[in-house]
Each structure stands twice: as structure tokens, then as C-alpha cells.
């Protein structure tokens, strides 16, 4: 195994692609798209099988092999595609995925026993009365295309000698008949085969025990014939003339002359080295490079300051050059880290299918804009919320075929997931043509859960009612199903999206369907912040959460309970002193009004220094979660500045 360690990463990465392709095409197969899908399935399972065999992962190879048998029956038209069969094959695919997880974690797939799946596959084949016809391959290639025979050698019969030959193929050879054919092919290029035992047809059908006898007429000489018949896994070639030749000339083996010619040609040909267009990079290495680039950005700032302080003009110019390269490098790194949304979108048709089947629903699922790119860090956090929303759409949104028919809709539901870039944001949209959100039911549930009182519920607008959906512990599902309400509610979805600095919006039209819109920044690594100063200490406040910067008049504040508030543009805003962090400042003159969702409050600061694009680094593990601070950034002068997390302090 150890010799294969080097290939483990590559094996996992490529096998995952093949697994994904397998699942995708299984779903297409179920939908009735036949030829292309089955070809793709074959290619994927074949590759998975071959690769796992090469790595010595016996369990995985065994499973792939059994699946291949079933696919053969499907391709030959012996088997019908049923939902049960697709279920079984998908279950097998799931196991392959688990095996890949195991392999990725350093295992060898032996911890995953495929016996259950393999038996189910066998049982299925037996039910079809199908025996896996001793590997009858369904040819991918149309057989009528008779290959051009190797041009037979022009035999000048007068010089020809007839020889009897016995060729023995090694007993351990896996494809003895193929070896025999190779030997025959080579012999045909130096002579004419007059008779043979077994016959060519028999060998073609695989009827060959390893020993071939033949009579050949040739003018090439014994040695040349022996060479032609010899080869890999040929253990013995016995040759003897049958008829005495009139003239025996030991000609050169025609092949060898040709070779020197081609050799000459090759040495003249320019030696073009292969151009490598793509390469795989470990994501951790990429993260490391990103960190280094960030350090470079910070140090560039320090150098700039030093040059300014000491007024060194040449250094200033040199730094200017470095500056440009660093900026470009930073941009490039951002681009490299972008990956297409298809990375997660591609898994979703399977989810829709499973949920629909479980719920007895019929759904057409469409995906658009999967090529839209997002930073890897955003992508990582997007998978679970998206999965949840999709499950929700099918589980809670789309009605059963019967109720849809009653409502005058097509029996098949419609779910569409699309993504596009809109200026600085990526917008992901999930539309369904289901029942929409039942506002009354939501309100009733809200009252039942004690989230709102009956009186307040009366006054709620649709929008406010929908907001309830995002409250922790809210679920409108009558019972917790296996599919969506796994204890995770929309509140978690919302929090996950917000953790990505994104927002979620819902529109609903009773009876017509719902629309969920996720607005995401394409990257999280660089944030626009306002640098402020309180008590001579600097802070960053994300521009995205700032709504206003106003003058602060100390005498206009009011004490409300324990807190302090101020009346600004007819709004009472709570004042949030950052005393705990920076100590009491007497010279606050500016108010920064920040907003999270619909809650606003204001932070008094001494000075606003300006706006800056910064790289926010999360606090390391041992500091733990610090309420109010999302991370720190290092400014050009080397100063470490905390960035305020508005969401947790408002």
C-alpha cells in the first residue's frame, strides 16, 4: 500500500468527480435520458473500479464491479429502470462516497462492508433471471466497422519457405487468447499463415488453452519469424521448416529497417514539451499563500511609513513598484480562490429526488448559473443552508400531486435554483411553485410557541409574519420529518448566511409559491471598514452595517433604565458605549449609527479616520469567541485593530 500513498489525494479527488458524475447520470437515467447517461455511468463506474483496484481497495473494487454487472444488463436492454433499482444504485453510490471519505481519512475502504449492497445487486440480477453472461461486453464500438487488416506482406512465393510453429503462452497470462492474437498479428506482417490450430474464429471466441500450432509461409527466415512470434508472456516458440527452400536468404527483419527510419525522423522533429494547463493545488497550501499575501500587504504598509518618516525618495519609488505587484498578487489570489457554485449545485438534484420520493411528490428541478463563482470560504458555509432550503422547498413548499391537481396546477411541481452576479454581490435564488407560506398558520404557530401574543399577531404584516419563520425554535411542519426538520430551522439557515456576511429574503404568494433570495458577498477575505478612534484606540466598523455618521451632542442624551439613548431624526437610538473595551472617553463627538436587521443603535467615537479595505483575520482558537469582535486587522503602520461585529452587539 505504501507505494500508493503518493496517489491517495489524486485518487480521492478524481474518484469524487466520477462519483458525482455517476449520481448525476443515474438521475438522468431515471428521467428517461438513456444512451448518453448509460455511457457516462459506464465510464465513471469503470474508472472507479480500475482506480480502486490499482490502489488495492478491495471492498470498493468489489462494489463497483457488482454495480457494473447491473449496468451491463441495463445497457443490453435486459433490464428496466425502476425507482427501486435507482434507489439501490444510489445507495451503492452513497457507500462509494463513504468509502472515499474513509480513504481520504487514511483508510482503505475496508471499514465499509459492501456485502449488503452487493447481495442486493446480485439478488436483483437473479430476479431478472439474468446471469451475468460471463462478462459479455456490450460493445461501445459498432462491430460492423471492420478494422483494416494489417497490410499483408507481399510474398514472393518463389523465395518462400513453409514453417511449422508452436507457440506457448504463459500459464499465468490473464488474456491468453489476446496474446495469441498479438503473436499472429506480428507473424502476418512477415508471412502468410496457411493453417492454424485452434482456428482464428475459435481464438476470437476465447477458446484457447495457451498452445497454438500453425504453418506459415515466409521468406523472412527462421529468426525473424521467431522474433515476430515472441513477446510478452510468450514462453516458448518452436519453429521448424516444413519444406526445403530453393534459396534461403537471411533477410533483415523488415520492421527493424523501418524503425531506424522513423528514429531519424523523430530526432529531427522539434522536441515539444507538453504544456500543462491546469494543476491541482491543496487548498491548505492556497490558504497559506493567501496568508502570506496578507502579511505582504501589511509589511508593504510598514515600509511605506518608514519611507515617509525618513523621507527616502528612492525607497519610496521602489515601494511603489512593490505596491503594484502586491496589489496584483492579491487580486490574483482572490480570483484563484473562486470556485463555481456547481461544486455544491451538482449535488442538489439528488437531494430533490430523494425528498420528493420520500414525500410522494413529483418535482421538476432546474439549475441555472452554476458557473457563477464564489470564494471558497463563502462556498464552505453555503452548503448546509442551501441544502436545507432545497429540502424545505420540496418538503414544505411543493404540494402532493393530488392537491396540486385540485388547485388547478400541473401535478409536477417546479423548483428552480439560479445564481448570478450582481455588481458586488452574488445572488442565489430559489423559486418554487408550491403552496407558498401560510401566514395564518405561521402566526398561529408563533402564538403557540410563545414567540408573540395573539394581540400582536393581529397587527402583523405578511412580512413580519415571515420573519417569525426565522426565529429560533420555529417549525411549521406538522411533524418532524426525516427530510427537512431535522431540528434545524430557518433560524440556523439565516445565521449561517449572516455569518457569511450575506442576507436572506423571502417573498411568498399564497397558492402560487415562494421565492428565497440569498445575497452573498463573493469573498469574505477583504472587508470595507471605517477606521474610528476612541480613547486613542482604533477600531474598524464594517461599512456594510453603517447607516449614518452624525454629530454627537452629549446634552441630548437621555437615561432610559440602565441604558442611555438619544433622539436622532425622530428615532430613539440606544447608545452603545465601548467603555468595556477602551475605557471611558470624554471627547466623543461623533455618532456612528449601525444597523443589524431592523435594529439600529449608535456607537460614540472620538474621531473618524477614514475608510479602508482590510483583510480581517479571525481570532485564534485560544482567545475563543469574543462577543462584539469579529476579528482583527493589521494596518499599514503595524497597528493591530479589532473589527467590530455589529451583529452581536446591536
Amino acid at each position: 500500500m505504501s507505494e500508493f500513498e503518493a496517489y491517495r489525494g489524486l485518487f480521492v479527488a478524481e474518484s469524487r468527480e466520477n462519483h458525482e458524475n455517476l449520481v448525476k447520470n443515474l438521475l438522468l437515467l431515471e428521467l428517461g435520458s438513456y444512451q448518453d447517461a448509460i455511457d457516462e455511468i459506464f465510464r465513471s463506474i469503470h474508472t472507479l473500479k480500475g482506480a480502486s483496484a490499482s490502489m488495492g481497495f478491495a471492498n470498493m473494487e468489489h462494489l463497483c464491479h457488482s454495480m457494473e454487472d447491473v449496468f451491463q444488463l441495463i445497457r443490453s436492454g435486459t433490464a428496466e429502470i425502476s425507482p427501486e433499482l435507482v434507489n439501490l444504485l444510489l445507495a451503492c453510490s452513497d457507500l462509494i462516497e463513504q468509502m472515499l471519505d474513509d480513504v481520504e481519512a487514511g483508510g482503505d475502504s475496508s471499514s465499509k462492508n459492501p456485502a449488503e449492497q452487493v447481495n442486493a445487486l446480485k439478488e436483483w440480477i437473479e430476479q431478472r433471471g439474468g446471469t451475468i453472461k460471463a462478462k459479455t461486453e456490450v460493445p461501445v464500438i459498432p462491430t460492423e466497422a471492420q478494422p483494416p487488416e494489417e497490410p499483408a506482406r507481399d510474398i514472393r512465393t518463389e523465395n518462400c519457405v513453409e514453417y511449422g510453429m508452436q507457440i506457448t503462452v504463459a500459464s499465468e497470462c490473464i488474456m491468453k487468447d489476446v496474446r495469441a492474437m498479438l503473436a499472429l498479428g506480428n507473424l502476418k506482417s512477415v508471412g502468410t499463415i496457411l493453417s492454424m490450430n485452434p482456428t482464428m474464429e475459435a481464438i476470437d471466441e476465447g477458446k484457447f488453452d495457451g498452445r497454438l500450432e500453425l504453418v506459415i509461409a515466409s521468406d523472412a527466415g527462421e529468426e525473424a519469424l521467431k522474433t515476430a512470434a515472441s513477446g510478452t508472456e510468450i514462453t516458448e516458440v518452436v519453429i521448424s521448416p516444413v519444406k526445403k527452400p530453393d534459396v534461403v536468404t537471411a533477410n533483415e527483419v523488415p520492421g527493424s529497417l523501418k524503425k531506424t527510419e522513423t528514429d531519424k525522423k523523430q530526432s529531427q522533429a522539434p522536441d515539444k514539451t507538453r504544456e500543462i494547463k491546469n494543476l491541482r493545488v491543496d487548498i491548505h497550501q492556497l490558504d497559506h499563500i493567501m496568508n502570506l499575501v496578507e502579511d505582504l500587504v501589511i509589511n508593504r504598509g510598514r515600509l511605506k511609513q518608514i519611507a515617509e518618516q525618513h523621507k527616502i525618495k528612492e525607497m519610496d519609488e521602489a515601494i511603489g513598484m512593490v505596491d503594484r505587484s502586491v496589489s496584483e498578487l492579491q487580486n490574483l489570489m482572490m480570483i484563484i480562490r473562486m470556485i463555481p457554485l456547481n461544486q455544491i449545485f451538482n449535488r442538489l438534484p439528488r437531494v430533490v429526488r430523494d425528498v420528493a420520493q420520500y414525500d410522494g411528490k413529483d418535482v421538476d428541478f432546474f439549475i441555472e448559473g452554476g458557473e457563477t463563482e464564489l470564494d471558497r470560504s463563502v462556498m464552505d458555509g453555503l452548503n448546509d443552508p442551501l441544502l436545507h432550503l432545497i429540502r424545505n422547498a420540496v418538503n414544505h413548499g411543493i404540494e402532493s400531486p393530488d392537491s396540486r391537481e385540485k388547485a388547478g396546477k400541473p401535478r409536477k411541481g417546479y423548483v428552480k435554483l439560479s445564481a448570478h452576479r450582481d455588481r458586488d454581490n452574488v445572488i442565489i435564488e430559489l423559486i418554487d411553485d408550491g403552496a407558498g407560506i401560510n401566514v395564518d398558520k405561521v402566526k398561529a404557530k408563533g402564538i403557540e410557541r410563545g414567540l408573540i401574543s395573539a394581540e400582536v399577531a393581529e397587527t402583523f404584516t405578511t412580512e413580519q409574519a415571515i420573519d417569525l419563520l426565522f426565529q429560533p425554535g420555529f417549525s411549521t411542519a406538522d411533524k418532524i420529518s426525516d427530510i427537512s426538520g431535522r431540528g434545524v430551522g430557518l433560524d440556523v439557515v439565516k445565521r449561517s448566511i449572516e455569518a457569511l456576511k450575506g442576507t436572506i429574503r423571502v417573498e411568498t404568494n399564497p397558492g402560487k409559491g415562494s421565492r428565497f433570495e440569498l445575497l452573498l458577498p463573493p469573498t469574505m477575505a477583504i472587508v470595507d471598514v471605517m477606521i474610528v478612534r476612541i480613547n486613542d484606540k482604533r477600531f474598524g466598523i464594517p461599512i456594510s452595517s453603517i447607516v449614518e455618521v452624525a454629530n454627537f451632542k452629549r446634552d441630548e442624551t437621555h437615561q432610559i433604565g440602565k441604558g442611555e439613548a438619544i433622539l436622532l431624526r425622530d428615532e430613539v437610538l440606544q447608545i452603545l458605549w465601548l467603555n468595556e473595551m477602551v475605557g471611558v472617553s470624554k471627547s466623543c463627538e461623533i455618532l456612528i449609527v449601525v444597523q443589524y436587521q431592523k435594529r439600529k443603535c449608535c456607537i460614540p467615537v472620538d474621531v473618524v479616520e477614514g475608510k479602508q479595505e482590510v483583510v480581517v483575520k479571525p481570532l485564534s482558537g485560544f482567545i475563543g469567541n469574543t462577543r462584539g469582535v469579529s476579528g482583527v486587522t493589521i494596518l499599514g503602520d503595524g497597528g493591530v485593530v479589532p473589527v467590530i461585529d455589529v451583529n452581536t452587539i446591536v
Partner: protein
Amino acid sequence: MGKILIVDDTLFMRTLLKNILFSGGHTIAGEAGDGEEGIAKYKELKPDLVTMDIVMPKLNGIEALKAIKEFDPAARIVMCTAVGQEQMVKLAIKSGAKGYIIKPFQAPKVLEEVKNVLAS
């Protein structure tokens, strides 16, 4: 020792094969990920030998073999195959393939076959 073109749709297999061939002192003329690319690379690189996978997207190994043989009847092509693909390999040999190697690859067997085919 020869200049070899590897045609296989998976990077994994190509890498595996490449390292085996390197260990046998061969040089890699190039790699191709499907049959079409294989044909183009053959015409461009004129390798001494081609290892050709059978099941590939776009154009499978048999079709690619035929096209290469048509372009250069002297082309030495070794098919990469697996147990169960006997019929395919036979078809390939009738179309002019000079040898075959079986997955999972065993380095000594691969090198022996490559050596023999190069010598033919």
C-alpha cells in the same frame, strides 16, 4: 527506452503509468485526456509508443487507435485494459494495436510489454 504518449481520461491512471514508465527509463512525450486529444497529441509529438485507455469520453480508445493507425500505420499502440474487456482488446488488436497491459498495472509487466513493443 522510448518517448511515450499516455492517453487516459483520469489523471490518477496517467500519473500511475507515468511513474512506472519513468522508473523504466522512458520519457513521457505527453499526456492526453481523451481520444480526440490523443490523436492530436500523436500527430504533434510523434511518440515512439502510445498507451491507450479504452473507455474514454469524446472518442474511445479503439476509435482513437484507428485514427492514429490511419495517420501512421507504423504507430506502436499498447492498449490499457481491464479483466472483462477481452473483446475490446481483440478488436483493438485487429485494428493494429501492438500490445496490451492490464489494470491494476504491475510495473514489471508494463515495462516488459513496453520494451517488447518498442523492440518490434
